[in-house]
């Protein structure tokens, strides 16, 4: 293994584990039914939703090569499939990948 890549992996792992570890340390004094727990619950859901929205609207990686329009159409159509399939998670997920590949090929 090249040293640079190994160091980058170790640094990435450390930066990732730090937030998780601090989370466990903080969790020890928090009761399941406390207001503080409910607040953190809201923070977690809002943070995840922000991450998902940012990934779709301002993507990183290969998604950069697709258009806003194609991503928006795929997400809206997938949500439509999600609701008509009685909130099944798999159908819209598979649909999104196929739909995105097809749209990206033609747009």
């Amino acid at each position: 293994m090249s040293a640079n890549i190994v160091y980058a992996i170790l640094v990435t792992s450390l930066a990732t584990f730090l937030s998780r570890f601090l989370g466990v340390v903080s969790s020890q004094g928090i009761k399941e039914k406390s207001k503080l727990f409910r607040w953190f619950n809201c923070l977690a859901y809002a943070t995840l939703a922000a991450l998902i929205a940012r990934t779709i609207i301002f993507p990183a990686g290969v998604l950069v090569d697709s258009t806003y329009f194609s991503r928006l159409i795929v997400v809206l159509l997938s949500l439509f499939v999600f609701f008509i399939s009685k909130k099944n998670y798999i159908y819209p997920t598979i649909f999104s990948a196929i739909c995105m590949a097809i749209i990206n090929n033609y747009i």
Partner: protein
Amino acid sequence: MINKKFFFRGYRSILTHDSPAIALTCCFIAIGALFKNLGFNIQESIFSTMLTYALPGSLVMAESMLIGASLFNIFLAVWFVNARLYPMTVSLFPLMMHKSQPKWKYYFSCHFIAVSAWLIMRSNYKQIPKKHRIDYWIGIGSATVSVSVLGTYIGFSFSDYFNKDMMIGLAILNPVYFLCMMVGASKTIQITLSVALGIILGPVIYLFSPEWSILLAGVIGGTIAYLVGEHSVS
């Protein structure tokens, strides 16, 4: 030690009809292919998935390496993007803490905190006795990491056969899956509002502060949702 019955019950949770296994595998297929393009070998790719086990962090590392960033810059960039794991941990671990369980299980298993495992645990924890939730959680985490490693291996091995459109198709799959799970989990006013505000504020704040956008959107959106929810209950 770990209760085998609950561990395997957690491990099998990814085999259900609404499991994240397919989405997770496809995302790590994309990551495996990306690692190969970056010059990683198979050991480094799997090592990275096992040790980091967080997609956005891996993507940031890959992009930082592409532009030749220093190790310190990689650390800061990954820490910022993965700071979301802190509220996720604090909103999950109090549900699993039990005085009869040794603390090492909590410090060890916090490594499994990631969106898929977190969402599975959140939707199933009420069916598990509190004493054994940590064993169930370790089962979920081991299963999701196994699937991620498998995906990385497949992506690395078959990257030459994927064209650009297929890679883009694989990349959209993860946010769509998570979005559906979040919409499905929105059953109370606090969670529904948290999700809605996060979706709106995340991209808006990104225009002004890309590094802090996720955290700020989470704190502002989550706090407003919490206050509105508490007010409506009272």
